[in-house]
């Protein structure tokens, strides 16, 4: 069986996203190896908040793949419900991020504080923008899925969400653990 057009397009989107995030994370690693002082800067990030957000994204990925499974079984309403759980996970992730950033900015750790914080806000901000985009697209897909229409879109948006999860899996150790 050939790869459906929608899914093929999604893979190409992710291929380009791989270069975008790969370039950013590659640059971060280069600088991190050069500047030992970044370990001191990274000591200010909240590991537990990052770990909780990782758990939230992993769980939202589970609901996304279960939505895909429900779509495969032609159970659109269940797929839509699971997609909304995934959106909820994205919302929790963003709320934790907002809590973290508020705290950090109050401490004077802004995007212009240093090269580390510049990378921190750029990488986490770009990732958060992808989370928001995923939530919006998922909501639109859930509307049609609830009517048992266009169920193949559930898989496509799920693949996107898993990619966002994979990016965070690498951001978490880079920004929160390597201290």
């Amino acid at each position: 069986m050939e790869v459906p057009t929608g899914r093929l397009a999604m893979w190409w989107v992710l291929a380009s996203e791989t270069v975008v995030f790969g370039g950013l994370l590659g640059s971060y690693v280069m600088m991190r190896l050069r500047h030992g002082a970044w370990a001191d800067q990274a000591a200010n990030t909240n590991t537990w908040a990052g770990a909780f957000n990782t758990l939230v994204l992993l769980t939202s990925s589970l609901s996304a793949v279960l939505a895909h499974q429900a779509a495969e079984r032609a159970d659109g309403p269940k797929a839509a419900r699971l997609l909304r759980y995934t959106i909820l996970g994205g919302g929790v992730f963003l709320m934790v991020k907002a809590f973290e950033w508020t705290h950090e900015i109050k401490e004077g750790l802004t995007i212009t504080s240093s090269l580390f914080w510049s990378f921190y806000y750029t990488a986490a901000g770009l990732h958060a923008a992808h989370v928001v985009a995923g939530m919006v697209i998922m909501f639109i897909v859930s509307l049609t899925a609830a009517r048992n229409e266009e169920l193949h879109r559930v898989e496509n948006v799920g693949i996107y969400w898993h990619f966002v999860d994979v990016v965070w899996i690498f951001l978490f150790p880079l920004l929160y653990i390597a201290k």
Partner: protein
Amino acid sequence: MTQRAYADAPHHDETSYVAIWGALCALLGVSVLGPMVGVRFLTLITAFGIAIVKAYLVCRYFMHLNVEKKWVAYILGFMLALMLVFFGGVAPDVSRPEGLRWQKTYVEPATPGGER
């Protein structure tokens, strides 16, 4: 694609997804607790080694790369290879403090809030 044709696509066992999610959560626990030991080598293994394993599990089982056409994995692999070329080409210069007609003057400022 008709809904019937989509419903005829290969299915995956629900319990296996939950089991994979459980494994991912367990790995997350190790990646958080490992660095607390304070051994640099162990931190690198538990943080970045486990990140690679977690990403592999998500790509293979949640994104279904294990049953997707092989060339999809090749496309993604090619993009990763490009990233390595970028890293290999630029990193040597980034790590040098000076060159023939240039010198790095940037100094990382002290942390404003101090360590938490």
